[in-house]
């Protein structure tokens, strides 16, 4: 029995700045920097390759600036890649557009938008990036549904209240803008919005960072339950090994834009191979 990954990412690279041929050879963990000393460009991520399997939660962990969010933003087509490829294997996805065997980064921006709107969901670390703070929470969700070609107002309203219920936002507050909500509630509205189009892939960037411990717990429980109910494939970015341990079975460890280690999460925690992972794990416990 062969399990086919839903997402295959190859040699993903993002350089901020003009870049030069020496960038890859002067940045990374060995050089303890992601800034190229020859041209001053920032190599946010380089040569990042991995697979995401159907129904799995994959973690990405690493210190601030290691390139975690860059990877997620690139996958969501928020930013242009410098180089790299991404392939999807899913019959549902191939139905609407023929993207089988095609490098998604090379598609037209219209096609990228189509893929993003129909199959991806994202929750940003900063709720201001994911939500319009002055539009009602229901309206935020409806906007996303419209992008995914929903048209009936009544159906969108039903869907929004269903999602808010699922993410434990009192439905009677649906007409309030997220600005009125606490940080934990805003993250839950973001999750509701991200789920609205029934994505196959959900990208979560530091969803619980900065929240109170008890609020964190509720958001984490919500993610765990959602993954179980809907067979989503999720990428969870966090600098917190506690979150990674609770949610993921496999983990990528990043430093200075490079993957230093990929492994089973329990192996990463109990038998870390890379010196950096060893420091990360030992400083957590």
């Amino acid at each position, binding site marked *: *029995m062969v*399990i086919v*990954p839903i997402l295959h990412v190859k040699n993903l690279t993002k350089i901020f700045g003009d870049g030069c041929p020496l960038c890859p050879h002067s940045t990374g963990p060995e050089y303890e920097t992601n800034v190229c000393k020859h041209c001053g460009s920032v190599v946010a991520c380089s040569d990042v390759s991995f*697979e995401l*399997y159907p129904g*799995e939660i994959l973690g990405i962990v690493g210190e601030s600036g290691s390139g975690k969010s860059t990877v997620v933003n690139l996958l969501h087509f928020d930013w242009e890649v410098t180089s790299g490829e991404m392939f999807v294997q899913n019959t549902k996805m191939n139905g609407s557009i023929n993207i089988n065997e095609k490098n998604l980064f090379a598609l037209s921006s219209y096609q990228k938008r189509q893929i993003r709107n129909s199959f991806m969901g994202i929750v940003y670390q900063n709720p201001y990036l994911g939500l319009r703070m002055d539009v009602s929470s229901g309206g935020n969700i409806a906007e996303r549904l419209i992008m995914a070609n929903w048209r009936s107002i009544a159906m969108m309203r039903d869907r929004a209240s269903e999602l808010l219920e699922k993410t434990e936002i009192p439905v009677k507050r649906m007409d309030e803008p997220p600005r009125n909500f606490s940080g934990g509630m805003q993250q839950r509205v973001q999750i509701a919005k991200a789920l609205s189009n029934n994505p196959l892939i959900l990208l979560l960037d530091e969803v619980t960072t900065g929240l109170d411990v008890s609020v964190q*717990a509720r958001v984490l*429980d919500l993610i765990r339950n959602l993954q*179980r109910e809907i067979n989503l494939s999720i990428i969870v970015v966090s600098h917190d090994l506690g979150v990674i341990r*609770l949610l993921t*079975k*496999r983990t990528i460890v990043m430093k200075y834009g490079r993957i230093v280690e*990929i*492994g*089973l999460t*329990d*192996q990463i925690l*109990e*038998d870390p*191979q*890379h*010196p950096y992972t*060893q*420091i990360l794990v*030992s400083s957590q416990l």
Partner: protein
Amino acid sequence: MIIKFPFIKGEGVVTLLKIDNLSKIFNIHILGDKVIEGCDDVSFIVERGEFLGISGPSGAGKSTILKCIYRTYLPSGGDIWYDSVLYEQVNLAAIADHMVIGLRHKEIGYVSQFLKVIPRVSAIDIVAEPLLLKNGASPGEAKTKAGELLERLNIPQKLFDAYPATFSGGEQQRVNIARAIIWKPRLLLLDEPTASLDKDSTAIVMELLKEMRSEGTLMVGIFHDNELMELMADRIYRVNLGAKS
């Protein structure tokens, strides 16, 4: 399913697990590349329906062996051949991580001395969860079976809906065992599962394990108590410190 494993020793005797020259070395970079030997030159086989005990002095590497089989530790050398249902014959020391996840999901279980508490999940749900996720049971069915098992393990009914974080060590351990055995894994790795249990609970656990073995679960286990080990194990593999230095 045809078993293609090459180690058939005549009528009905089939080797399902074969460990060849397994070794594990920990390279601790943060301690100036300090090298610690976990286990060395471990070889044994386990046949269908067998319980293999591992014994040896403290620090000899018993837990290390189990963790290598489960792949919580990455083996440094040697092979761990397992005749799986999912992927047929595989070397657990070498297969891809997602295949290990598949095997853990469907056929390989591990139970240690401590409950890895899942925060904010009740005892009965912790035990019912594997049936839901792995065996495709309905929620009602899973809960009923979980309740029955907890009852058999003498967990008072009033604790079913409580969070195990507040349970006594022995109660937690019984929840832990229940969660590990309820889904009837094909290969079960046990690291001192009864260490924090009293005599009566230990006897119940032993009985449950024997039932599982008779239903065909392959087991490799470490027990803190030699008497228990003799009682449970069909064969015993001895690790000693001497071989390490």
